[in-house]
């Protein structure tokens, strides 16, 4: 860990137990300032419960939360947090403008025009005077995002923010999030089942399974893991590497463990490579073309289907 790394969110051993069931199990997460942290897990894995604890909507059973470097006075730190968790909260018999006005007053924001600005930001300007009970699901979701963005939060916690949005809406929200991250250095903790969309914006990932955080890695590491390659399992990786370099001029390879080599180039010549290794005296135990798309990689990691 770099000494000067600043974290927007850190949790240590965060746990939430409902009677006998551990919904969140000892999660220690680190979200750096400026990260777009993709939070991935199956339904019921504990993502929403975790996010609720961070946002102050649920009390942890155990563990600590640190927001912007502080463990104390979290309520004060949460004034820098915006969240949209589960479904957006609203008063159905009031208009979109009224709902935003209520949030504006709660937060003590002096500028009255901010309600109009927020509606413009999420492309709901024409629906300001419409009652929420007449909104579609996508419109409610946009309103929820607008509410989360009030007062320019430093940390945004979004639980499935693109639910109910059409493709153009999804793109707009994606562009908005990347713009906020780029221009305002807003840190974003976002969960989604649409892995393709998440992979377009996330800089870091956390995988949660049955309440426990099983892995955390950066986007670069993910790309590395998903790269297409020829995996060969041999008895002598040094001899095999020498053959690859001398016979084929292959330099783009790595040795992830003592018996495996991953070859990232010329894997269309797999047959010749295999033959060269065998005739060169290397015992070839396995040779397979590997590499996955992101969804395939996550599926494998999570162990079964997402739904």
């Amino acid at each position, binding site marked *: 860990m770099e000494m000067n790394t600043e974290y927007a969110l850190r949790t240590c051993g965060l746990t939430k137990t409902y009677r006998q069931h551990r919904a969140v199990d000892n999660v220690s997460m680190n979200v750096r300032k400026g990260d777009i942290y993709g939070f991935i897990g199956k339904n019921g894995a504990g993502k929403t419960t975790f996010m*609720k604890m961070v946002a102050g909507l649920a009390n942890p059973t155990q563990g600590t939360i640190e927001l912007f470097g502080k463990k104390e006075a979290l309520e004060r730190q949460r004034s820098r947090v915006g969240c949209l*968790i*589960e479904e957006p*909260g*609203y008063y159905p018999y009031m208009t979109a403008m009224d709902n935003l006005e209520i949030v504006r007053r709660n937060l003590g924001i002096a500028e009255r025009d901010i309600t109009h600005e927020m509606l413009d930001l999420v492309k709901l300007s024409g629906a300001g005077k419409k009652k929420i009970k007449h909104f579609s699901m996508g419109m409610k979701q946009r309103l929820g995002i607008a509410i989360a963005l009030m007062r320019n939060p430093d940390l945004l916690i979004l639980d499935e923010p693109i639910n109910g949005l059409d493709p153009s809406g999804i793109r707009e929200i994606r562009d908005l999030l990347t713009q906020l991250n780029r221009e305002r250095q807003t840190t974003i903790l976002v969960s989604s089942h649409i892995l393709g969309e998440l992979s377009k914006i996330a800089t870091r990932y956390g995988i949660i399974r049955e309440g426990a955080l099983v892995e955390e890695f950066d986007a670069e590491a993910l790309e590395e893991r998903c790269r297409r390659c020829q995996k060969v399992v041999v008895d002598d990786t040094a001899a095999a590497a020498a053959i690859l370099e001398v016979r084929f001029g292959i330099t783009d390879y790595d040795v992830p463990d003592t018996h495996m080599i991953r070859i990232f180039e010329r894997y269309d010549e797999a047959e010749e490579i295999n033959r060269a290794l065998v005739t060169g005296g290397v015992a070839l135990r396995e040779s397979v073309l590997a590499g996955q798309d992101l969804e395939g990689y996550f599926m494998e990691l999570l162990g079964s289907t997402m739904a």
Partner: protein
Amino acid sequence: MMYNLMSSELYKWRKSRAFYVCLLSALVCIVLVWLSFWVEDQVERGNIENGTMGFAVMEPDAEGGEATGILDDLDIMLMIQTFVGGGFSTLFIALFVCVWVVGEYTNGAVKNTVGKGCSRLHVFMAKYISSVVSALALNLVIILAVVLTGAAVTGPARIGETFWLDCLVYAGLQLMLGLAYAGVIAMVGEFTRSMAVSIGISILLAALSPALASAADLIFKAVHSDFRVSDYWIVSLIEHCPYEGIDMDFAGRAVCATAMWMIVSLSAGLVHFRNADV
């Protein structure tokens, strides 16, 4: 922060359909009751034919001599007591406060406040204060409506010398007791967080709790104790509040019970709100 939250509560109150529906419904009921008494009175006096507007008086006064009507025997103070102490205003207060408090949970609006760093203490206090103040306003309008409609129907001559003083004292006590009652209902709303359940419990509280309190009194009496639950239960006090000749003992108990039930309901509701997930 408290100022911001109260400003928001005021804004919500102004836009609250539930408040205006409860208010209007109560006013319509009051006017209809007085109107029905007026029509009956006119029938009894022979000024209107029996059966007019669907009102049929079973035994109208006999013809000849000076006819009397029901309004001669009807006292405005008695009507205030009937409406306010008889369960009418407590019903509307219960309905509104349940909708007001539980409405924060029905569609998750409370997340927008708690999740933005607003202190749970302040959030609940703002909701509690707005609940009891709204109940006060509702109760006040009901009392004023009964007085004004009654005075219009019975005539200013029926208002005696001590009426305004008695009315002021009675209304003051009922408004004070109403604050505590609204606080208890707000607590019920917070604990249940369900519209149907909170309304059901609140109506049961209003309708049955005085009888249960009386039953508890009998139990205490059976064990040779002078303690009476109904002397301190808020709904019993609302029901038994006399509209004339109010003594210091009753007034003292009313003040103590109001303070006690407001403290209990505020504390219990706050503890629940702080510890429960939103």
